[in-house]
């Protein structure tokens, strides 16, 4: 799927794009309402407004490599408030996707995403225990940090050890394959 659609939650589609990043950023006039609305902008190398500017300037690779997209929590405040209808959250997701696909993020973060999606692909539903096993196994230091939380969750009966039983879980894996076939790798 080389055409990606860029939409805002409150308006008609802004434009259909051929670029995998989408191009509603072209409408951005740099007011900074996105950055003002963003709770994680303080920790980003490039704030959402600066990311839009980098994309306008043709410096997408710099925006992708900065890892700023990984700090987006997808709260959609920026997108809802943007006076120009830019789908800022989807842009941030796009640079996040490319960052992960290019292996530019820390391996723990890459494994976080991979472990989640692999678990859903296998079961059709998220299985917390399997996810954590996949996530922690290669870096037990992370496990040590989380052990207290894990034990208290266990004590409160909030850890479901049984894998989810979804009837169509095999078909879910086929869905993942089909999506990749249509979309291609980012």
């Amino acid at each position, binding site marked *: *799927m080389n055409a990606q659609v860029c939409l805002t939650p409150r308006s008609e589609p802004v434009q259909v794009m051929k670029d995998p990043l989408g191009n509603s950023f072209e409408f951005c006039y740099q007011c900074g309402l996105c950055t003002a609305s963003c709770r994680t902008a303080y920790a980003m190398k490039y704030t959402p407004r600066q990311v839009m500017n980098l994309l306008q300037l043709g410096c997408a690779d710099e925006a992708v490599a900065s890892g700023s997209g*990984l700090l987006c*929590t997808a709260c959609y405040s920026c997108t*809802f408030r943007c006076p120009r209808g830019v789908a800022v959250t989807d842009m941030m997701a796009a640079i996040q996707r490319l960052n992960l696909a290019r292996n530019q993020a820390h391996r723990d973060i890459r494994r976080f995403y991979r472990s989640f999606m692999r678990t859903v692909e296998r079961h059709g539903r998220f299985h917390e225990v399997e996810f954590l096993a996949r996530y922690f196994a290669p870096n037990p230091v992370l496990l040590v940090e989380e052990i207290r939380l894990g034990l208290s969750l266990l004590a409160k009966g*909030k850890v479901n050890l049984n894998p989810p039983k979804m009837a169509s879980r095999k078909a879910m894996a086929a*869905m993942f394959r089909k999506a990749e076939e*249509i979309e291609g790798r980012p």
Partner: protein
Amino acid sequence: MSYVYYPGCSLNGTARECEESIQAVMRALGVKWTELEDWNCCGAAVATGVSYLLSLALPARNLALSERAESDLVTGCSRCYMNLIRSQHYMQHNANLKDNVNAVLAETGVQYSGKARLRHLLDVIINDVGLDVVAERVTRPLDGLQVAAYYGCCQGMWTYAQFDSVEDPTCFDRLLATLGAEVVHYPLKTACCGGTLSMSKREVGSNLIGDLLLAAVAADADCIITACPLCMFNLNSFQNEAGKAKGTKFHIPVLFVTQLMGLAFSLPPKSVGLHRNMVPPDPLYKKIAAGAESSGEAVAAGPK
């Protein structure tokens, strides 16, 4: 009105108390529903970082299943709700995208037509059941209890856009006031809790959570009430980390909205999962009992 209920993945695990309280309270309100058969994960906040198409197709499958059931689809999780409504909205405005999503869905033998009716739990409680019916069910008014109504980001933006104000939603305040609680002024009510950053970027997540807890303490709230399982998990589980980030110590109970409703309905605390809360809600019981006494009501026994 017929409903199918989509619990979402976390309600079977770390958000078990949310599920228990939703079921108990909706039963008390006389709402009947069946669980959406064969539902799948909505992709949470992770799928968009891996595949744009999957981030729309995963929620769309649940929408398609609800169309087959010909019932309103009710979600108990705000992130699920947001993903589902995002998928629905994008497909509604783009036929090409909908075709691609349906090509993916064909692998599981379902198709999305566009007829699905998505509902948030709060929407059903407030607009279908009605606050008058909720008020009738209140047997132990929460007099004197000061609560911070935390709407959360997904709800502030996507959810309340459907049935309340985007920037300044108030329906949650009205619901909590119906229970007799005093809703404090909570300026960060629609600020994001950081979502999965509490796991993937701990120092940033802890800082955001700390802001929310600080604001609730500053507002003299006895507890924070949320309607999102992920906010619930973050605000409950990371108070130590948030305290370190802010140079203080937090110990403020955070309850899911239906847990508080359960207390006001005099349901046993265990039946609404209150024994599972990471921050024990015990101080609230005393406060509620004290409030009942001062308002002259006979309370046979505290909720303990």
